[in-house]
Structure formats: C-alpha cells, structure tokens
C-alpha cells in the first residue's frame, strides 16, 4: 500500500495530481478516436506535466509497424490535434515510452507478445506493473480482447500493489440484454471497480459545473422543483450528417447513440437530489435513484418522435439525404433524430415533463439544458404590457460557448409600462480560462489516478436501457421514420409532441 508522501500537503494546491508510474495500452490505435482525441490528450497531459516520467504508451493493431512507425503516427496526430504547443523536450521524453505490438484482436498468441512488451516496460521503463487497457474498438470485439487479456495473464497485476484497469467507450450495448452481455464479458475478467466507462460528456467542465451551480449556490436550489419549474428541455443537436460513420451509425440511430448515455446522464444531473458528498459512490447513488424514477411520459406514440434527414440545402451547402449516405442500405429504418417526453416520478418532479431531443443535420451545433419556469401566478399589469413576456428560463450551455443564461422580463425604457424578455449571461470563456482541458485529458488522467466519480456505472447504463427499450421496440415495428429537411429543428412530429402539452421547443 502507498505510504504518506511528506512532500505532499493537502493545502498545497499548486502541485498537480500526477499519475503514478503506469502504462496505457490502446486497442484500435489506428482509429479516428485514437488519433484525434486519445493521442493528443496523452501529449497534452505530458506537456502539462501530469504524466509520470516512466509513462508508457503501447499501440496494438493489425499493422506491420515497428515502434518508430508508431511514434511517427502519434507525432502526426499530436501535431495536428493537440491543444497545447508542440515542445520537442516533452515529445522526446514521451516518445521514449512508446511501443507497438502488431497483432489480431482475436489471436491469443498476439496477446502473449503484448504481455512480453508490457513486462519489458515494467523492467526498462519503470511502469511498475500498473496498466490501463483502452478498448477503442467495436463492442463485439470486447469479448475476444477480454479473453486474450485473461489467457495471457495481462489482466492480473504482476504484483499485489499494482493495478490493471480497462476503459470502454459507448455504445454500451444496443439494448438492455446486449449491455448485460457486454458487461459480463468484461467483468468476467476485470472486477467492477477496475472498469471505467467513458462518457466524454461527463468530463466537460460545464457538465461538472451543473453540480456546482445547483449545490454550491443558495439561489437556484429553492426553485429547482415542480412548484416553480414548468418543464425541462435537454437538447443535443449536431449540424453535420453521419459522414463516414455509416458502419457504426446505421442500426444504432440517435436514441442509442446519444440519448441513452449523454442525454440521460444530463437529465440525471439536473434532476437528482443532493448527494451526501461528492465521492463516486454518493454521486452514483443519487444518479441511480433518479434514473430509476424516470419513465416515458404517456403512450409511446405520443411521448416520442423520430425523424430522418432528407437531401437539401443547409447553410449554403447541398447535402445528401441519410439514405443516400455512403454505406446506408435503402431499406434502413435508422432514425437520425429522436425526441422523448419523460417524467420523473419523485416528489420534486411530479408533473414536470423532461423533453429530450438529439439529432443530426439540425439548425446548428449546440448542446444545452433549459429549465423553463412557470409564469408568475399573478401579473399586476395590463395584458398588453406583458404580451412580449415569455417564461423565465435558466439555460446551461454545454457546448459551444459554454456558460449559463438566465431569461427574465424587464421594463422597456419609455413612458409606457412594457415588459420584454432579456437575458443575463455568464460565459465560461469570459470569466475563466480559454485554457480549459479537453474532456479526454481529464478522463484519461482520472483513469490513471483511479479516480472514478465521472464514470457511469453499469447500473446506470442498464437503467438507461430500461427507459429506452420499450421505445426502440415500438419504433422497430413502425416502419421508416418521418423525414425532416436538413438545417431545420427536426420533424413536425416532434413539434406536435410539445404542442399537445401546450408548449414549444426553444430555438437554441
């Protein structure tokens, strides 16, 4: 067990948390995620001095590469995508710990060669037997990789004080059953506390700020309930299509891709009760409690909407329809837009609908949570005075232009009494740093430090599927989804869903 370090003082906040000696082994190292996010994040961490000198990065893929070919590949990725400036000294130090093992994910022999490399790193680089395995690969390959790690002995720490961790990315299955199967494959080999599920949204500063906003302030929590809140809208819109991700996206769709994980996690953070502390277990307890209370608000036909983008002009560009994207079968019924009306059965939220929507080729790229308040019970003005007054709203902008906006009514200057909506704005970039780390930097560091608060637990994943499964089953039997034009805010069905409640979607 680690003893106390006399050079670390709890009050000494200047000293960063540096990961101990360890290695990161990436499967699927030639993929997009690895090149655009993981490798740059590793470099940025090193550049910020947060990785130990003995850090090692091992790539495993089906390529005929030597170590230096791999290093060259990482170099290019870092040059192109890293957030911090390129420094030769950082690079030289980092590159000394690079290894590449060519191999098949399904071939146990290749895992034995990987095990030799890992042992060599413990010896020569001083990684101390601590290793994290990052599975940046399709979920169907989780089982063979877990098996390979097990048979080669890689899953077991070489010494009692060393650790082994495994990192997996969404999608965590495509329904409840498959999520459980996936989890069984991993947890047969690794204990639950060694499994880190990455939901990069939870690594974003603004999402963590939701907790600070709610629980560090006296101003918001008293009105954060059904006495004052009319409804909540959670939006995740992308302006791009599926691009080259047809193989991944078709058959998955918007609901499985983002609603099941990101949007439900955002909902959990907005709706949960105050945790007794901010350690991983207490946070998870509260998130699980609220996710257990989530259900579809009404008959599925009326409480859900889906859509698929058609061809057309979007912002001066001619774009293809979903069905015309490369690799999409003509009989595909995958939705590119999903909206749900959910209810949270708790005393705090009874009667407050939570509207979730996510889609591609929408008006613009934006992710936000809008808490829309009820109207004042009595307005001591003439009706004409307040004709331009809407509902008060508190909007947390997750991306881009991270911040918080509050909308409220204000008197228009002049002799007449006229009230109109105005906004009060807090921009993260205005009040704090431009220099906030990428979500992946934070998350990779947390994995290496073994700090789990930001990683969803299997139970949360399963609760998410329990909410979504009935909707997905219903959609599967209802033919192709309705269409919407690119650059709009989704299909008519979605607007109708809110109109039935006498509400409208915000234009984000």
């Amino acid at each position: 067990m680690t003893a106390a370090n006399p050079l670390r003082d709890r009050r000494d906040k200047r000293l960063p948390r540096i990961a101990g000696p360890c290695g990161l082994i990436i499967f699927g190292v030639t993929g997009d995620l690895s090149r655009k996010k993981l490798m740059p994040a590793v470099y940025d961490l090193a550049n910020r001095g947060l990785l130990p000198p003995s850090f090692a990065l091992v790539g495993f893929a089906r390529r005929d590469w030597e170590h230096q070919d791999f290093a060259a590949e990482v170099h290019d990725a870092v040059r192109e995508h890293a957030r911090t400036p390129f420094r030769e000294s950082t690079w030289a130090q980092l590159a000394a710990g690079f290894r590449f093992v060519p191999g098949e994910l399904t071939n146990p022999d290749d895992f034995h060669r990987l095990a030799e490399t890992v042992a060599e790193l413990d010896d020569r680089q001083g990684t101390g037997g601590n290793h994290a395995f990052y599975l940046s690969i399709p979920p169907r390959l989780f089982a063979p990789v877990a098996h390979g790690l097990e048979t080669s002995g890689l899953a077991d720490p070489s010494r009692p004080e060393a650790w082994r961790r495994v990192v997996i990315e969404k999608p965590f299955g495509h329904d409840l059953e498959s999520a459980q199967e996936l989890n069984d494959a991993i947890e047969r080999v690794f204990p639950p506390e060694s499994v880190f599920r990455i939901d990069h949204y939870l690594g974003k500063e603004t999402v963590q700020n939701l907790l600070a906003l709610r629980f560090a302030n006296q101003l918001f929590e008293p009105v954060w309930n059904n006495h004052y809140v009319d409804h909540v809208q959670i939006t995740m819109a992308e302006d791009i299509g599926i691009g080259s991700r047809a193989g991944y996206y078709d058959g998955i769709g918007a609901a499985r891709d983002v609603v099941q994980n990101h949007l439900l996690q955002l909902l959990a953070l907005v709706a949960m009760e105050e945790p007794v502390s901010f350690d991983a277990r207490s946070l998870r307890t509260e998130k699980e409690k609220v996710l257990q209370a989530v259900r579809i608000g009404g008959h599925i036909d009326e409480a859900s909407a889906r859509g698929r983008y058609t061809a057309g002009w979007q912002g001066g560009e001619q774009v293809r329809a979903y069905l015309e994207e490369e690799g999409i079968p003509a009989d595909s019924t995958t939705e590119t837009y999903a909206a749900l009306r959910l209810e949270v059965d708790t005393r705090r939220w009874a009667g407050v609908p939570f509207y979730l929507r996510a889609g591609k080729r929408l008006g613009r790229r934006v992710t936000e949570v809008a808490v829309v308040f009820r109207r004042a019970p009595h307005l001591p003005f003439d009706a004409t005075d307040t004709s331009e007054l809407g509902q008060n709203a508190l909007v947390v902008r997750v991306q881009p232009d991270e911040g918080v906006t509050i909308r409220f009514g204000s008197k228009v200057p002049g002799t007449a009494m006229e009230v109109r909506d105005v906004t009060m704005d807090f921009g993260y970039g205005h009040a704090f740093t431009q220099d906030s780390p990428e979500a992946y930097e934070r998350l990779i560091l947390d994995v290496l430090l073994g700090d789990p608060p930001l990683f969803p637990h299997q139970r949360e994943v399963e609760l998410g599927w329990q909410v979504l499964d009935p909707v997905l089953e219903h959609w599967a039997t209802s033919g192709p989804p309705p269409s919407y034009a690119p650059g709009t805010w989704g299909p008519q069905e979605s607007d109708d869903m809110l109109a039935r409640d006498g509400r409208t979607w915000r234009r984000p």
Partner: protein
Amino acid sequence: MIIELPATSSAAVARALVDLREQYGAVALGRVLTLVVLADGADVEQAITAANHASHEHPLRVIVVRRSDVDDERRHGHADRPHLDAQVRLGGDAGASEVVLLSAAATLTDDVSSLVTPLLLPDAPIVAWWAGEAGAHPVETTIGAMAHRRITDAASCHAPLVAIRDRAESYRAGDGDLTWARLTLWRAALAGAMDVVASRGDVPGVSVVEVHGSSSSASVDLLGAWLAWALRTSALVRRVPGHGVSAVRIGFDDGTDLVLERAAEAEVAQLSVPDQPTRPVALAPRSDADCLAEELRRLEPDEVYGEVLVRGLPRVIGG
C-alpha cells in the same frame, strides 16, 4: 485600441470606461478580478504583457500605476503642479483584459489606493503586484492593506536574497512571490518522484537535503526551505554559476539518493529515483506570465508558502 486621457482624474477615467462599454459592447463583462500593478520605467510594458497573457486565463482589469520621474515632469513643464495622465487600452492592445495605465508624480502615487479606488471592479477581489522593487513591508502600504493578495517578485529586486528574507520578516496571509511560482514544476517533479518512493512503503528517513543553484537566485533558498520544512530537516544550499536552481539531492538513511538535475538553459532535467533507471523529465523554465497566471489561480492565502517562508527559510544553511 488605445485612448489617451492627459491631465485627468480617476473619476473621469471610470466614466470613460463606462462610455466605452456602451459604445463597444460588453467590454467589462465577466471580469473576475482587478490587478493593480506597481511598476516603474521599463518594467511597465513588460508587466502589461505578462498581465495580458494571464488575462487569457483570468479575465481581469489591469490598473498600472507608474511613478513618472521628475525629469519627465520637468520636460512637460508640470513639475510644480503634479497631475495624473491616463491611458486606456482595450481589445487587441489588452489581450482579454482592459488596461488602465495611470502615470503620476510621486506625490500622487504615494497613496495608490485613493488613485485606484474609483476604478476597481465591484465586489471582485483585488490583487496587487509589485513588478519591481517592493520595499520592505508591502502589506503596510495603502494598496497592500486593501488588496486580497499581494504578489512580489524577489528576483526583480536588486538584492533577491535580501528581498526574500524581507518577505519572511513581513509575511501576512495573502502574500505571494513569483519566486515560489517559478518552483512549482520543480516541486511537482520532486513530489512525483517521492510518490514512487512512497508507493513501496514508508519513506525512509532523510539524512541530507542539498540544493544547488545560482548565488543570485532566491528560488534556490526557497526550494531548500520547502524541502527542509516538508522533510523536517535542514537544507544545505550550494552556490554554483548559472541561473536559478540546477540540482536537488535528497539522501535517505538507507544510503540511497533521489536526484533531480537540470543543466543550464536546458528544458529537460534528469531524475534518478532509488531502484529505477535515470530518466529525463520535462522541466522547462517558466515565463513570468505563466507564473503570474498561476499566482492568480487561487485568491485565498497560500498557507504552504507562508509556512515555508516563515518556518522553512531559517532552516536553510549556506543561503
């Protein structure tokens, strides 16, 4: 954009800032603190550059108070009638901040707080930064008493080793010195190395702590003071040619050593930890702007710095 306001008053500058905000939009929104910089002569532009750089991390209003020299006054024929000249910089000339440069004769700058009070951001913390000489007791000046944090820089004083001991003498909660921030990377590397030692069981007793560094660097003494304070021992300082800190050795009772060494001007240091291969550690010298940004990151008193200064510094031998 640079706006000159000759022979003016602080209240007029404050009005000008409000007007500018109305004309050009949200100039003063989201500022988190007011940084009052006390600088003379050539230090001024350097200090503004550092503050502008730091403002990308902490949007701030910078108020620079510059004592105009007597010759300057004479040349403009104002020697007998002290007055205040101001300059406001916004947009591209001010990073993510807004800079107000106040120049006045000594009679006016003696009481800095009355000059800057109308220009302080409401409610936001005040940080005072002495970019050059700070005098023996910064906290006893009017601006020092008013500020939440006082930042000095022993390295830019003419006698750094005396200056850092003055700081220890007059230390009050809220003080800080850039010399300390310059050490953060060294301290992080040493603490990281000690993590490795601690991961194998109890850290053995420490028999000797040595810090090698330049004879004009207060950082050398301060690093020794930190180690002496944290390891409950004394630290030996050895003066060698060069800039800043060049090596640290921590000798344990069991005869093993932890050594961190950096050659002059190098960006990489060599770290050797007992039972591990010697390896390079990135340890580039830091710019003043980086150090200032770090200093502004926390606005509560830095208790560790205070204890190192007051309790650790007397344990440095050969300083």
